């Protein structure tokens, strides 16, 4: 019964995973007359020593961690807040819930187009126009995506907008499974709303909250689509937004240097695995399941 799934996983995940490790030891090009050449650890060495490659690589890595360090806490807390908010029974809530869920069905390719227009650099961009109107013209137009200081922030806003609803739904499910009588008991004890949140809600959804944080971490390390999409149209400051995944694909695919790209992919994978393992350890020490 498990055979078809395992066969497919073997062909399309395990095999290329082993392939990535093997290819990272070669100098390798697609459609090249030159035969693949075994170079041992050279591709890895270049990641750390070749100035052209290594400075970009460490830059990408730093961008990755900046993105994750902001997105994981911000998006998880925002998702929790929104889930609590739409879990209330208020009139008209159905409409708000619908609106809150909407971004979920927007594919990133389209999200990138919309936000590119919102962040557009001159006074015709929506954000610039709003800021200018609010300040009576005092705030000058800014190139949000193009300037090094705001490009990463713009990508973060775009990503959170698109995917916070996903975490929100999972947390909403968890909130609804917290037994109601716990809240009743707490309010008989005259516990304030805030202490109910800390002593009833959070412990009640603890496991789901951890799951959501782990998932967001792994997703945030994968950052690629947004950056690549905006870079294709030449509208983003690539220096301050490129990530390891972006470098893997541009090196391996656009520059047809598959050996080097594979070495980066292996390092990327090691980072993802390390982060996942560390997080699981920390949670286990914390007395969780």
């Amino acid at each position, binding site marked *: 019964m498990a055979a078809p799934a395992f066969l497919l996983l073997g062909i399309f995940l395990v095999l290329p995973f082993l392939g990535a490790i093997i290819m990272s030891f070669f100098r390798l090009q697609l459609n090249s007359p030159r035969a693949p050449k075994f170079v041992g650890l050279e591709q890895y060495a270049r990641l750390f020593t070749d100035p052209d490659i290594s400075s970009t690589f460490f830059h990408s890595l730093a961008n990755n961690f900046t993105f994750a360090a902001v997105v994981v806490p911000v998006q998880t807390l925002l998702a929790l807040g929104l889930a609590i908010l739409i879990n209330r029974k208020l009139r008209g809530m159905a409409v708000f819930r619908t609106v809150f869920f909407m971004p979920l069905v927007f*594919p990133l390719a389209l999200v990138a187009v919309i936000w590119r227009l919102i962040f557009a650099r001159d006074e015709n961009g929506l954000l610039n126009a709003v800021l200018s109107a609010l300040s009576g013209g005092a705030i000058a137009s800014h190139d949000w995506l193009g300037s090094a200081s705001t490009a990463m922030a713009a990508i973060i806003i775009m990503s959170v907008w698109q995917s916070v609803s996903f975490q929100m739904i999972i947390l909403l499910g968890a909130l609804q499974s917290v037994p109601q009588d716990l809240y009743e008991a707490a309010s008989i004890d005259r516990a304030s709303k805030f202490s109910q949140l800390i002593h009833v809600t959070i412990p009640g959804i603890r496991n789901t909250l951890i799951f959501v944080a782990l998932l967001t971490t792994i997703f945030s390390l994968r950052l690629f689509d947004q950056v690549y999409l905006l870079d294709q149209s*030449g509208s983003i400051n690539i220096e301050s937004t490129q990530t390891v995944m972006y470098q893997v694909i541009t090196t391996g695919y656009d520059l047809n240097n598959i050996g080097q790209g594979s070495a980066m992919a292996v390092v990327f994978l090691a980072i993802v695995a390390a982060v996942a393992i560390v997080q699981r350890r920390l949670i286990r020490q914390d007395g969780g399941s």
Partner: protein
Amino acid sequence: MMPRTASLKRSRLASNIGQYSLLLVFGLIFFIPIYYLIMGSFRPQEKVLSGLGGFLPTDLSLDNYESVFNRFSNDTTGHVWQFVGVSVIVTVVVVVGGLLVNSLAGYALARLKWRGRGLALAIVTVLTIIPFEAVALPLYYMLASSRNTIYVQALPFVASAFSIFLFYTFFLGIPGEVEEAARIDGAGPFRIFFQIVLPMSRPAFATVAILTFLAQWGSYLWPVLMVSDTNVRPLPLELSVFQSSQPPEWGNVLAFGVIFVIPVLLVFLFFQRWFITSVASSAVKG
């Protein structure tokens, strides 16, 4: 008693106002970009980017939609229905095929006794950490001869360690007495699975279907690597090619985007209530 009730009422009113304000603020944050997209798709090219004016429903026409259909109506540019068709076929194969093979695998791991099951479970758990992105490059190298086909866009995504894991945890949680009774009556594992387990597990199937659909419908990285031919190009890839044309034709790009997202949005709104309850009842018990 009276003053206390009054103050209670007043504080409830204040808290309601507070909650509605928050709902409104976040509602606007979620809605404005969508409104901006839809409004822009009905405006002339040169007026899509026009600051706050882009907000007013002026200069609206169907011209963009007309020119999108006119533009994509020959074999060099491809046809709109072609992009939609490719995306639909690939997504349906991945979702339906994925539900079948992953649920069977999850069931085998949760309920059947077989040699190597422990090892298989450990492997699946480890594989959930490997992101597809990390193996994209070697896979591209391995499958380079199958570029520009439909099946190469779908097959790598049918089996998913994460889906298997979700099914596995769900099946562990359902009581086994009915299955036991069926087994004593001589039913085989496939029969038990399709006639007993599957009907009991609708929320799990719905959740996995929705998660797979959302990931696959918007998928971008793999088509970038594997597809250059317009005939087999899925929607997200064509949208990105379209938006990077110079000079950008914003009105047309937005109309193309709306054609892309509105059907999904409608289906989603239609099933919304059901969608939330299914994710809520099955999803991920941590």
